[in-house]
């Protein structure tokens, strides 16, 4: 226990500002913005519709202490029924098309969708084939796409904020 506590103390608080260039994106202001727009925390449901798993790794990184997503009032939820926003990765595989549509339908209105990564945006290196449908927008309505292979956690976080903000106006 002493070991655990001493390591916690030595680690300290590592959370960084989202974008140093954008003072408005500092964590406190960010949290206020989300609360102003949504009236509560932003709940995200992630759906992997056929990715190579690279985007998932960067989405998971959002929860590490540097990006500290939960610290700014954004959390990942287990059920689409609890979600405000769907984060979708991958070129949509034929075998996942139905599951993606059903998940989208299960999210209550008003809902937002972000397509993550080159594949989510346009199908990426896999293109459109007998096994893939291409980008997420070909299957469900998409509010915003993030390019990158995979996009960095900072890029994903910025895109989430922009999407929320543009909807709030």
């Amino acid at each position: 226990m002493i070991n655990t506590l001493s390591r916690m103390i030595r680690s300290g608080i590592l959370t960084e500002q989202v974008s140093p260039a954008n003072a408005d994106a500092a964590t406190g202001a960010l949290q206020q913005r989300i609360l102003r727009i949504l009236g509560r925390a932003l709940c995200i449901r992630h759906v992997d519709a056929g990715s190579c798993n690279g985007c998932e790794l960067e989405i998971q990184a959002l929860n590490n202490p540097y990006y500290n997503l939960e610290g700014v009032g954004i959390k990942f939820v287990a059920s689409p029924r609890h979600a405000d926003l769907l984060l979708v990765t991958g070129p949509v595989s034929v075998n996942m098309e139905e599951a993606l549509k059903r998940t989208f339908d299960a999210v209550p209105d008003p809902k937002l969708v972000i397509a993550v990564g080159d594949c989510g945006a346009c199908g990426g290196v896999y293109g459109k084939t007998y096994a893939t449908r291409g980008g997420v927008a070909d299957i469900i309505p998409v509010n915003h796409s993030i390019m990158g292979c995979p996009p960095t956690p900072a890029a994903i976080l910025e895109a989430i904020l922009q999407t929320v903000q543009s909807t709030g106006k």
Partner: protein
Amino acid sequence: MTAQIDEAAKRLPSNLPCRYTLTSAVEFRELAKSMRAAGGRFLTLWGADDRDRDGRFRVYAAFLDAAGLLVVEHDMHGGAEPLLPSLGEFFPSAVRMERAVFDLLGIRSLEPDHRGWLRHGGWPEDVFPLRRDFDSSAQFGMVSEPYPFVQVEGEGVHEIAVGPVHAGTIEPGHFRFSVVGEKVLRLEQRLGYKHKGIEKRFESLVQKEGHTLAARICGDSAVAYAWAYSAALEAVTGVICPPRGVQLRALALEHERLANHLGDLGALGNDAGFAFGLTQFSRMKEDLLRTNQACFNARYLMDFVVPGGVVSDLPDADPRSVLDRYNLLEHDVVGLRNIYDNHAGVQDRFRGTGTLARETAWELDAAGLAARASGVPHDLRADFPWQPYDKMNVNVSTQASGDVAARVSVRFDEVLESLRICRALLADLQAGDIRRAVPSAGAGLLGIGVIEGWRGPVLIALETGPNGSIRRCHAHDPSWQNWPLIEYAILGNLVPDFPLINKSFNLSYTGHDL
């Protein structure tokens, strides 16, 4: 039998010692049987449509034994409905691969289980995408088909269906538990949800571009796959990667291994109810990814390894700064291991959970980390060291208990071993080029690349076509062997322990589904 094969065998171009032989249908099974008896392992199985060339289909099986790789071609006759003698009797892990070969090529295995594996109804059942006459731009509507899971009957037995979409940021797959109360009597997996037609996609690329797709077969093993692809192409063209390029490839591969192990160690702590572990290890993983950004210009090394070498050299900055980061990481990992080992709650969840017996691991050809945690000491970096591992004397870490604790322990050992290898690579870094030009290979050559990724051996079998094209490219992930292991490791455990057990294997869906 294998001695006779050895005499008759030709050599195939590969980064590992690799023999090749052609067998009749009877010999194909006989050879598998003698391989099993001699302690050989089954690696992969793939098919090809060569009807445009000589009117035949082909099926290849790859084995590993004490002499290295053995690729066996089944001399297949028969026209529209080719048949394949099943290897499932000797190597149960072959059955799912045989089902996949049917879905993609229409080569029917003489195995009783004919349920679709990769085909969920997304293309008609009489259409086979890997055949030459298949129009690759064709798209079909989904026709959902029922999948007959094996039913378990008895008083109080009921089923729990999970997935394909899971709670959390993870890949899609379906699990069907048959349980009494919370105790698992049987688990049946259904995969294939992420099938992206990668092997067909390869055929529309040229040889020099194939590595970009190979790196995206499985995002957490990008270096391993890109290296395996490059090794296959280099083997058929006779190009040798310069020493510095080879060392940088190994550095990148070990960084990939480190990042994944750190991520898993954190997630395993979290699944055992110790969120502190997740926080600490995810911090260390992020630090390493930022080191990747500084050293290789990318957090994830999708396009770092290319045929002939690597794309960029290390920055000119003082290499000691990287060594300092290794020292810091090692200090942190040793401290965390001490905390995990002495935490009663964590150990209570780890020990005796999800046990995979050594005999089961042998029988099912367990690969990589999962095998080593059950006392099967295979690691290609030590067994058949290719450059630069021939100078590394890699220590293979094993455990006997085969439970979650064993897989955690192997990960800790491998983190420390990878750090040792990284230091040695940096200390011995050769001057000179990092890349050589790779010409296009002539048509009709088959080359094999095999790399020990962090999960186990990944394989690329590349057959060249005319004018620098790719005729056929087969990719194999160790998850093919290891997914069935979980169906055994879960038996008798509680349903709530499944996330922990599943995480302790951390298998790839995308690498398996292709």
